[in-house]
């Protein structure tokens, strides 16, 4: 009898790879953070340990998840770090750059596996070659001193101990370990590699024996018992299980070592301290979370967090959005009922509204991530650019814990990179120039994030030469960009956002290619943001990016035009008024309204959207004064309806792009209302 077993169960191991990808990226970031902080200084033992742990974790994870190419780079890197932390080779400043290069190589491999990006193998080979060269140089020296070092010596040295120890390690895995795509074979092999030759034993036993017919075959009911003699530190043993085990799943017990009694008492392994005993079963690196300089250790907060796919969070946000719409619908229905007769219903609905808002706030906060995720990339970028430009630059970051929507974080990174590059390339002067101008030779670049009102504000501030107004205006005139000598500084600074504008004398590979600032502005505007510039000659410049807190839900003012309703984002509204006839004027054939000495253009929504209005005369309608991107105007509508939170839906995805709208929302009565994009409306008005 022959029976094919059929197809695989359809479990998607790729989603488990994602966990590795994320942890790998975190380890790389952690490694880079330490290396950048070091500059050219020699790392201390704890810092070397932290870098080693990061490399080792990546290697372990890569092995477990089958990304063998990544283990090659991390292995040679780990070996070199091992030699360094055991003081078998001296530290050289160039090693920091080499480790950074190795980090880049691993990042490239990670991107290859994660996103299918091309991997430049020659770059990988080059880094591996350099690392190997240092390793081999060290080994050659070592072999002079000790002609035949045992293979276990490296591990012994890695332990920071002169004596091997014998351990019994019991691993009771999470029942889902197989479903998580963890390869026990890799873990056991890695653990065995830490043992002295012939000093490793592994025994597996079933923790229970369920009826085969009722058993879920994806569950793990096996417990593993290892006995090994090793010179590796306890920490290294635990790190083997980093991606596979929770702290409570490991039990480590030290056993007497054969022949230990013959050793002098001073060389014998110290007995376990109370703290060590207490930490048995925990990962070694967790045992002293609060230790100063404990780089690379997982914080208590991280241990109590879970990873959730962003798509799931987005789904949750969408569902809360739908709930908001339903709540608004109910509120609208109840408005038509007798309040006396339906008092209890109204109270209930008011409570529902409060609860819905609380829920929405909580859900939205899930998507918030600290801006340190973006800021953390700049120390390295600044270090490398400053070295390339021959400038001395100190980077300061303020407000790194400021949180903003994950979607915004992803889209603000490129504009910020460009501003930082520009500040270094064009803003900050060389040390000689600075000294000649009575400044400190080291320039300062400050990245500052804060929450101001309902927006996130990010400043890129440098204490460089400041923008050169004359050059900007001259260049704008040369390029045919409309401008005048009499324009205010603020208006002059805006010229640098014109497409193709650049005052750089030379085109460099860093910036000054004439593309960028217009792209910066477009990218920031695309996420509902603004860019403002302040600059003082000789004092420096400040570029301020202001962003909405989130893209998913906004506070809006609903207005009516004919039978249609529109939403105006509340953050652009200055005030609303019913103008008196004497406030209405005409300038160059365009309708304007005079408000406290200013003449603001009147934008008739019904004309822009080709609707039949109920009100034609502005003095009978409502003018809503708005300001967007430094431009002000008065939007004419039939009536103001309500101020409400609306869930932003993409109209492009569901229908098509509608000029003048930034999206759409579903109102309480089930109707669709366009959310106005003021910048586009101003453009439409100018065209008309």
């Amino acid at each position, binding site marked *: *009898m*022959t*029976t*094919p*077993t*059929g*197809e*695989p*169960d359809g*479990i998607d191991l790729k989603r488990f790879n994602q966990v590795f990808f994320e942890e790998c990226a975190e380890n790389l970031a952690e490694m880079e953070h330490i290396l950048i902080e070091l500059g050219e200084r020699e790392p201390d033992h704890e810092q070397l340990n932290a870098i080693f742990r990061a490399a080792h974790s990546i290697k372990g994870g890569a092995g477990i998840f089958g990304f063998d190419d990544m283990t090659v780079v991390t292995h040679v890197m780990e070996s070199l770090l091992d030699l360094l932390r055991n003081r078998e080779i001296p530290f050289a400043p160039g090693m920091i750059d080499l480790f950074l290069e190795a980090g880049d190589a691993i990042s490239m491999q990670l991107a290859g596996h994660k996103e299918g990006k091309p991997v430049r193998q020659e770059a990988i080979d080059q880094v591996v070659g350099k690392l190997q060269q240092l390793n081999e140089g060290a080994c050659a020296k070592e072999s002079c001193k000790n002609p035949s070092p045992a293979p276990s010596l490296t591990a012994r040295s890695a332990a920071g101990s002169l004596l091997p120890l014998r351990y019994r390690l019991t691993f009771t895995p999470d029942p889902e370990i*197989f*479903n998580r*795509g963890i*390869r*026990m*074979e890799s873990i*056991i*092999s890695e653990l*065995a590699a830490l043992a002295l030759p012939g000093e490793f034993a*592994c*025994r*597996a036993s*079933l923790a229970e*024996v*369920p*009826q*085969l*017919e009722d*058993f879920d*075959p*994806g569950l*793990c*009911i*096996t417990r*593993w*018992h290892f006995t090994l003699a090793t010179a590796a530190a306890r920490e290294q043993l635990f790190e083997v299980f980093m991606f596979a085990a929770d702290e409570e799943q490991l039990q480590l017990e030290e056993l007497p070592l054969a022949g230990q009694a013959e050793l002098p008492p001073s060389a014998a392994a110290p007995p376990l301290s109370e703290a060590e005993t207490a930490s048995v079963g925990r990962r070694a690196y967790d045992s002293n979370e609060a230790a100063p300089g404990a780089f690379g250790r997982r914080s208590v907060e991280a241990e109590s967090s879970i990873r959730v796919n962003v798509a799931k969070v987005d789904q949750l946000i969408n569902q809360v959005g739908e709930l908001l719409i339903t709540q608004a619908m109910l509120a609208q229905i109840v408005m038509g009922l007798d309040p006396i007769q339906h008092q209890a219903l109204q109270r209930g609905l008011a409570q529902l509204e409060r609860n819905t808002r609380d829920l929405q706030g909580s859900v939205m906060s899930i998507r918030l991530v600290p801006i340190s995720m973006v800021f953390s990339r700049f120390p390295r970028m600044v270090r490398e650019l400053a070295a390339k430009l021959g400038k001395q630059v100190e980077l300061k970051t303020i407000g790194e814990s400021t949180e903003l929507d994950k979607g915004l974080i992803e889209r603000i990174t490129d504009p910020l990179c460009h501003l930082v590059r520009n500040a270094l390339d064009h803003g900050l002067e060389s040390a000689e120039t600075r000294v000649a101008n009575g400044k400190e030779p080291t320039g300062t670049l400050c990245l500052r994030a804060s929450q101001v009102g309902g927006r996130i504000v990010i400043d890129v501030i440098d204490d460089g030469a400041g923008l050169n107004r004359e050059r900007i205006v001259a260049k704008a005139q040369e390029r045919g960009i409309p401008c005048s000598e009499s324009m205010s500084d603020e208006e002059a600074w805006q010229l640098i956002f014109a497409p193709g504008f650049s005052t750089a004398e030379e085109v460099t590979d860093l910036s000054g290619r004439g593309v960028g600032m217009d792209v910066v502005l477009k990218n920031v505007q695309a996420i509902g943001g603004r860019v403002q510039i302040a600059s003082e000659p000789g004092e420096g410049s400040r570029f301020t990016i202001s962003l909405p807190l989130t893209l998913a839900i906004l506070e809006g003012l609903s207005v009516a035009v004919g039978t249609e309703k529109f939403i105006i984002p509340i953050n652009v509204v200055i005030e609303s008024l019913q103008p008196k006839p004497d406030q209405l004027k005409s300038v160059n054939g365009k309708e304007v309204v005079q408000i406290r000495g200013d003449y603001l253009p009147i934008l008739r929504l019904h004309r822009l959207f080709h609707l039949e209005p109920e009100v034609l005369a502005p003095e009978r309608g409502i003018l809503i004064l708005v300001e967007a991107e430094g431009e002000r105007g008065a939007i004419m509508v039939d009536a103001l309806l309500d101020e409400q939170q609306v869930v932003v839906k993409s109209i492009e995805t569901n229908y098509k792009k509608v000029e003048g709208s930034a999206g759409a929302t579903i109102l309480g009565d089930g109707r669709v209302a366009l959310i106005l994009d003021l910048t586009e409306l101003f453009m439409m008005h100018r065209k008309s």
Partner: protein
Amino acid sequence: MTQTSFAADNRITLHGTWSREQATALQRLLSDRLAQLLEREPEPASLDLSGIGELDACGCQLLVLFMENLRRRGISPVTCTLSEQVADQVALLGFSDAFSVVDTPGKL
């Protein structure tokens, strides 16, 4: 493609890949086979695992559980043949004791 073969008597021959991806199908097959064996008079069974090409911890656990279920129901595997490659994997995973009734390939 994983393939599992059973003889009509108490000789059980398994082939193919025994890994997490195939675990549900394999468990179903082993359960069916267990039920068939239980319908017969209890007598020793022999296992030929020499045709198994790949084996991971999940597949290995399933085989051990199968053998343990056999034993608990009065059917003791008398021989268990493994290929060298699979025997190494079993040893690495620490399951050698469970497969201790081991025969060399071709001796069944």
